[in-house]
């Protein structure tokens, strides 16, 4: 549905995004993560047609966004990072105005307005002036504005910033709910948010794509922690020889015990094979457990080394 084809964007002499490519299909919820200044916001601005890339292009259902931004923008709901809302307008006036600018009118406008207001839980504050709203409320008005016209594509730049924990859960549920029939690209600093909300993570480091993988792959669902006692120095070699093992990483070695992270080839459950190996070799099996990596680990690997995490 969205094809980002080797885009680059330069601000003066600074290359904010370099040769970035990825594609998104309908119904996916993509989490865009990466350190500050990595190019996440620039990428989103290019997808929405606000900026034109110096190189490459973005296609939405085959149409080039830079050539016909209006056609793409009709289908996009966008929450910019700074969430700008005119301070002198009331919430209701603002949302009605945005709806009209997006071509909604009459009963359809009223219907969509009441949906968005309910979904973002701002029904009680419709007559408030935007100036008087807290950051969390403003953020929810921004999200209401983005979903108002029932767009196919939602681009949300840090949607949960400024929200309290309860509101974060509500907005996550809303995003997951919207993601059933819409395509969502969101950026965030909170990695647990990506784990909980998104189906896929894109990690951008230094303007390039460092990681592009499904969340369950990234978190290594079937990766195992394996700890044995009474094993020799060749343990790692022996483990690598087991069928279906992709990678063995020695972790900490205490006095008598050795600990490894064993990564299987795609989706294979290694537990029985490792158990048999231990029995065969006479090792004392102390631990054989799923090692859920956190996205923080993936993030650190990708950003510190600059390389591609497994």
């Amino acid at each position, binding site marked *: 549905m969205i094809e980002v084809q080797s885009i680059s964007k330069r601000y003066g002499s600074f290359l904010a995004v370099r040769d970035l490519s990825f594609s998104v299909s309908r119904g996916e919820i993509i989490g865009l993560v990466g350190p500050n200044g990595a190019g996440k916001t620039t990428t989103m601005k290019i997808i929405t047609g606000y900026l034109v890339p110096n190189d490459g292009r973005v296609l939405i259902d085959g149409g080039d966004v830079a050539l016909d931004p209006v056609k793409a923008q009709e289908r*996009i709901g*966008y929450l910019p990072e700074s969430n700008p809302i005119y301070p002198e307008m009331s919430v209701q006036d603002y949302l009605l105005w945005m709806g009209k600018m997006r071509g909604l009118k009459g009963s359809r406008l009223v219907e969509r307005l009441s949906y968005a207001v309910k979904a973002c839980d701002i029904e009680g504050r419709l007559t408030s002036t935007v100036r008087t709203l807290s950051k969390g409320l403003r953020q929810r008005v921004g999200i209401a504005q983005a979903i108002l016209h029932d767009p196919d594509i939602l681009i949300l730049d840090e949607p949960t910033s400024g929200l309290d924990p309860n509101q974060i859960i509500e907005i996550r549920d809303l995003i997951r709910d919207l993601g059933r029939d819409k395509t969502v690209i969101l950026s965030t600093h909170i990695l647990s948010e990506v784990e909980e909300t998104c189906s896929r993570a894109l990690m951008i480091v230094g303007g390039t794509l460092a990681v592009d993988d499904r969340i369950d792959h990234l978190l290594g669902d079937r990766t195992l922690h394996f700890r044995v006692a009474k094993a020799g120095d060749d343990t790692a070699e022996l483990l690598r020889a087991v069928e279906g093992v992709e990678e063995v990483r020695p972790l900490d070695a205490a006095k008598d015990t050795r600990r490894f992270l064993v990564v299987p080839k795609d989706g294979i459950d290694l537990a029985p094979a490792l158990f048999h190996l231990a029995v065969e070799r006479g090792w004392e099996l102390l631990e054989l457990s799923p090692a859920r990596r956190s996205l923080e680990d993936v993030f650190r690997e990708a950003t510190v080394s600059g390389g591609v995490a497994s």
Partner: protein
Amino acid sequence: MSRVLVLASKEFKSYFNSWLAYVFIACFVTVSMLAHFYWGEFFGTGRADISPFFRSLPLTLLILVPGLTMRQWARESEMGSIELLMTLPAQGWQLVLGKFLGTLGLVAVALLCTAGIPLTAAWLGDLDWGPVLAGYLAALLLGGAYVALGLFASSWFREQFLALIGSAALCSLFGLMSWPKVLGWASNISETAVSVLGFVGFYGRFEAIQRGVIDFRDVAWYLSITALFLFFNVCRLHLRRLA
């Protein structure tokens, strides 16, 4: 077209939301009345002549209109709301035209509020309404040209104060170019300079229309300058996307 009107009415209303509109209208009417009744010595002449009011209009508009246009694009840039505006499914020309009409609407309301001046004259004596209507038409055309110039200038700045200076400078350039004093200085240099300045500048054309001489070329000149700078403004928006 409906997007243009939706944007125009929002801009128009937001002037009133922020009290700017009331201050603008109050200043506009006060300056016009002072110019007419006090400096113009309306009561001293003993004639139902409101030309002092119309003679003051080019300067009043020149001083006050940049105060309206400065907040347009510069404020959007400052607040970041330009990002939302430019990701709405609207063409650049629709955004520019919407802002132009919203601001021109306020200028028109301010002009309407000065209706007391010709009405007073008509009440005291026998007023010829033809030149009065022509004068208002000239003022609206001139106001429109200033709004277009001011909007264009405002689109280059991120801070409203700089936008004010920029708008005022650009409007003054066109507004004062054919002022009688300036033409006097230019006549010391060359006759060509006088005719070029007289052609490009706004003042002489305003004089002509306000006297009731509606020349198609004068009207067309105002409309062309307005359209040209609105077009430049649209170009400027496109340039933004590339920046």
